[in-house]
């Protein structure tokens, strides 16, 4: 399946990526060639095959529901771009 400029814009929006208008044709071409590569999968019939999500098919380990993390807010916020009074700052969301 070939991916056109509008599809590139839709995907970029879903992925929250700002891409420059002049880069769109290049992305359309490259994504189309990658999807063409991926579609070689269609050469085999897999209707009777169970999907494999985990290579070893291990069950997820469970643990007791106890507190394992301590509060390290200051440490983690020290590397944040913008904080104030222990809060992460973002542009105004509600007018």
């Amino acid at each position, binding site marked *: 399946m070939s*991916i056109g400029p509008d*599809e*590139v814009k839709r*995907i*970029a*929006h*879903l*992925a*929250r*990526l*700002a*891409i420059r208008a002049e880069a769109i044709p290049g*992305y359309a071409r*490259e*994504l189309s*060639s*990658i*999807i063409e*590569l*991926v*579609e*070689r*999968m*269609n*050469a*085999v019939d*897999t209707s009777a*095959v*169970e*999907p*494999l*999500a*985990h*290579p*070893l098919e*291990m069950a*997820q*380990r469970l*643990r007791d529901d106890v507190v394992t993390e301590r509060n*390290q807010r200051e*440490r*983690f916020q*020290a*590397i*944040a*771009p*913008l904080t104030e009074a222990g809060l*992460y700052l*973002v*542009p*105004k*969301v509600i007018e």
Partner: protein
Amino acid sequence: MHSKTIAELAAALAAREFSSEELTRHYLARITSLDGRLNSFITVTAERALAQARAADRRLAAGEAGPLTGIPLAHKDIFCTEGVKTSCGSKMLDNFIAPYDATVVERLDRAGMVMLGKTNMDEFAMGSSNENSYYGPVRNPWDTRAVPGGSSGGSAAAVAARLTPAATGTDTGGSIRQPAALCGITGLKPTYGRVSRWGMIAFASSLDQGGPLAASAEDCALLLAAMAGFDERDSTSADRPVPDYRASLNDDIRGLRIGLPKEYFGAGLDAGVARVIEAALEEYKRLGAELVEVSLPNSALAIPAYYVVAPAEASSNLARYDGVRYGYRCAEPKDLLDLYTRSRGEGFGPEVQRRIMVGTYALSAGYYDAYYLKAQKIRRLIRDDFRRAFAEVDVIMGPTAPTVAFDLGEKSTDPVAMYLNDIYTVSANLAGLPGMSIPVGFSAGRPVGLQIIGDYFAEGRLLNVAHRYQQVSDWHRRMPAGF
């Protein structure tokens, strides 16, 4: 000093031939004088290294040293190192000072190893040439016109040039084995779950696995013994004991059944590489092994399935980079959407953006069954191919990469051509199997790697099979001229 293996360095440290501080200064001096030609390091942590070396010397003097105490190493810049920049090769994390150590870092620290610095890599481990780094490409010490492979290209080039005796790497589709092959060194990707992923920046979580790069199989055995083991902080960590890899290195390999997948020796394999691989297989025959043709019939589907699974998981993992909590944030965002999209659009390089978009597309409404579900089904077929093969043979061998190292810029404009470098390596990731690459010769003056794939948790067998070859060959001892 730098021509010695880790085992030899450890013996010299124990015999007081030199101290860990002297050894560390020697490698730091080599990095200073030689890395300008390679660009294999992003960060050099000289002061921290010297402090760790002095601490190691105290342990050595007190008779409390282990086999790795006082030995320098470099970490791929994908492993979080507390208080040290951890960039993952990306502008997105150029300002990221990790607030904690990865389990791998912590374990090697505890073993007394000395961290020289952090190595260059393809951005977020996406690439096979190390040309996708925000910090510029790495060059291959065997020929500086050539790429070192990727994504652990800095680690492989630094070990090959003996700027460090060892380095860590990660392998999602071949990122330890392929650069090890292209740089003429030994690299091991363990079984999925063998080495903790905690603190290792995520690319594709069902495929990612950390492992060692060093000169020899014996060195990799020492490193893996320290890196491997259960970690409750990694939900997919394997809860099983770590065998004594060193103890089984010299096991007899007479009667070993080596499977040669016919799909790994067909069209697409460079004739020069094929000749070198054939010669290595002849050596294994002389060592008493038996060569058996096997088939992995779904091999041709591995790259297509991988380029769904890996980008899909990446698009989800990389959603965390939002310009809010850490990492790059765009200037003067006008609203929240603008903050997200511009921080990500400006912070990620082109290949990372391509893969995020492929993954987003494959997971988007209406396409999930055709791509992601289909790829997971193919994944089972590939896993079953290996299961059938391992019912007949002990290990599988073939080339690690279809060609020797290519020149910088040769493939960087065509993503699909670049992806095909990993044609022989991605299957082991999809199946979760351990794989190694060892140096077995040269073609056109550039190194060739032999890949050895083992059954689940058979790292000890792989290291044994590699070590026996290295006992009768010296390719792993060759060093590039000028370094």
